[in-house]
């Protein structure tokens, strides 16, 4: 294997399957993760993402398939012999050990000389800005501080592969955003290859360079965050990531799809046969609302405002279309205003660019 392929497939998962009794948790998944990449496994609970992560750590053995790290098969190597470290969900810090001893735990197991252990622990604590808290016990730290100690502990042994299990799941929303950026910065600075598991799509999109969307033990789509968001491969992916309006229709003419309420004009002809049933997906933020019918070639449909949800920075309007179908549209609140642009019962025109939709066949 040449060096460049080995870099592109630093971690290689080859048709890995895991059965628990009669239940197949992971079903023949294959994946290459490049050296230095941050990769996210995204899915709802029970989709198999955690089982896959545990197989990488060595806590579960694949029923079939192989896991290769830097070209070396990891089969048969117990967790304590793998160059892989994990940051556990809600951290699993040792409650009876100080912050310093938590970080030193792995280095001591390797039998490193005392001076080197001290040097590396101090460097790690500095990296995560926890030097002042070295003597504290985990329960004396805030959630964000515990998370940083857990990160330092999992990086201390300089693993070839870092696993993050719901890294920010235990933090509240505001702290999560700050920590996300900090966490990515540290991982990038160290340059360690990283696989994370999360059920939070925002977390996956903000941190990872690529995402695998998982459901029922399989990968539905693998791609960069913007690819997965803007070009979802299936209805499930479109619906799972972000908000979306899904409309059933059939292909009619060169670049048109006929749905119950609207004929979608597309920017280019879809690679789908005439008359085939498809689903058209439009993200709410791509939709504009007007009192008058918009001019130009925008796709448009008339509807009645049935409800709206005010989020501060934007408002989501729920429209009822002539067929009874629902449509969600996001309106950014550009100006400070006392009241909403539209009220319940208003008749409005919803419109979007011909290139705004995605045509889905699955």
């Amino acid at each position, binding site marked *: 294997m040449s060096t460049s392929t080995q870099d592109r497939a630093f971690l290689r998962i080859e048709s890995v399957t895991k059965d628990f009794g009669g239940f197949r948790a992971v079903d023949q998944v294959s994946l290459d993760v490049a050296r230095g990449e941050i990769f996210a496994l995204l899915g709802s609970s029970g989709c198999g993402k955690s089982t896959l992560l545990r197989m990488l*750590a060595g*806590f579960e053995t694949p029923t079939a398939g192989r896991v290769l790290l830097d070209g070396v098969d990891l089969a048969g190597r*117990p*967790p*304590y012999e793998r160059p*892989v*470290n*994990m940051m*556990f*969900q809600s951290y*699993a*810090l*040792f*409650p*009876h050990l100080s912050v310093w001893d938590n970080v030193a*735990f*792995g280095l001591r*197991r*390797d039998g490193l000389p005392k001076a080197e252990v001290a040097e590396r622990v101090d460097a790690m604590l500095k990296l995560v800005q926890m030097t002042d808290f070295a003597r504290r*016990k985990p*329960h004396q730290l805030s959630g964000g501080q515990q998370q940083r100690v857990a990160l330092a*502990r*999992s990086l201390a*042994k300089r693993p070839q592969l870092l696993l993050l299990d719901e890294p920010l799941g235990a933090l*509240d*929303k*505001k702290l999560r955003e700050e920590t996300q950026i900090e966490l990515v910065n540290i991982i990038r600075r160290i340059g360690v290859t990283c696989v994370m598991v999360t059920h939070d799509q925002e977390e996956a999109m903000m941190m990872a360079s690529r995402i695998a969307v998982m459901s029922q033990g399989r990968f539905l789509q693998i791609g960069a965050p913007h690819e997965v968001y803007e070009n979802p491969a299936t209805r499930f992916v479109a619906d799972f990531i972000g908000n979306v309006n899904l409309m059933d229709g059939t292909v009619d003419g060169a670049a048109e799809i006929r749905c119950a309420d609207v004929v979608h004009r597309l920017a280019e002809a879809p690679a789908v046969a005439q008359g085939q049933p498809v689903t058209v997906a439009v993200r709410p933020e791509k939709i504009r609302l007007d009192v008058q019918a918009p001019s130009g070639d925008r796709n448009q449909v008339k509807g009645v405002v049935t409800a709206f949800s005010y989020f501060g920075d934007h408002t989501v309007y729920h429209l009822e279309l002539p067929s009874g179908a629902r449509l969600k549209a996001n309106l950014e609140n550009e100006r400070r205003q006392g009241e909403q642009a539209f009220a319940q019962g208003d008749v409005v025109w919803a419109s979007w660019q011909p290139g705004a939709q995605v045509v889905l066949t699955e």
Partner: protein
Amino acid sequence: MADIADSERAARPAPRRLGGGWGRRLVVGVPTLWLALFFLLPFFIVLRISVLEMDGAQFTALFGRDADGQWQFNAHLQSYALLLQDSLYLSTYGSSLLYAAVTTLVCLLIGYPFAYFMARAAASLQPLLLMGVMLPFWTSFLLRVYAWKGLLDTQTGWVGTVLVDLGVDRVLYALGFIPAPGQLMYSPFSLVLGMVYTYLPFMVLPLYGTLSKMDLRLLEAAQDLGATAWQAFWRITVPLSRSGIVAGAMLVFIPCVGEYVIPELLGGPETLMIGRVLWDEFFANNDWPVASAVAVVMVLLILVPLVLLNKSQSGEGARA
């Protein structure tokens, strides 16, 4: 959002502190009263007797008037002086502490793996195992201890005959635990066996309590960081079960020090324990002041380490 939640929290009245209220006083008061009536008061009675002298069948008075009609306080310490002078008492205290310590250690060595596998057994099996630990309590303690007399008989008891057939008695003799090969009863061996048998559940239950509450992900984290299963056990499981070890050790050690029935039934002439001395002073010698002094010293002997331990644990608690 977070700010709103914060200000809401600030605006809400603080939850009523669990102070004052009659209910609380009652809940705290009943056990306090219980201890005062059935521990503190009897202890002071015994303490008072221990500083008196026997005057025929009567005690001397603690307070009295002398010939001039002056009030006098007549405390005598010669009972305590006797405890120090007669080596019988000191050596008996020593052997009581020793047998209690050995029993505690053996209980820990048997009880820890026992509790560990109980705590790690399938959740559906655990109630059954717990039941098994407590089942002996359904039979009278006296009967169970008495049964060992029969079991350890080297002629008729099956445990005794098996041990002799296996040659275990010769090993025990070589170690000085039995007076002669082929005689298991009335020895330090049978005494410690009886105490371990009786007090083992008191070691297992608190250990099981702490071990079953342990977060197993900590062991995975230790393994992930390079610890073998054995290292993870010593570095994580054992330190985290410390409170269970201490509680179990106390529950075994303290009653063992003052144990009377088991040494009486299973012990021999060499295994004189302080409970027996206490009995003899009270009921054979009828020397209540000395008997009381023996009892007071025994309580202090147990209480002092207990207080120190409590202190170190609450210090630990403040830090932990």
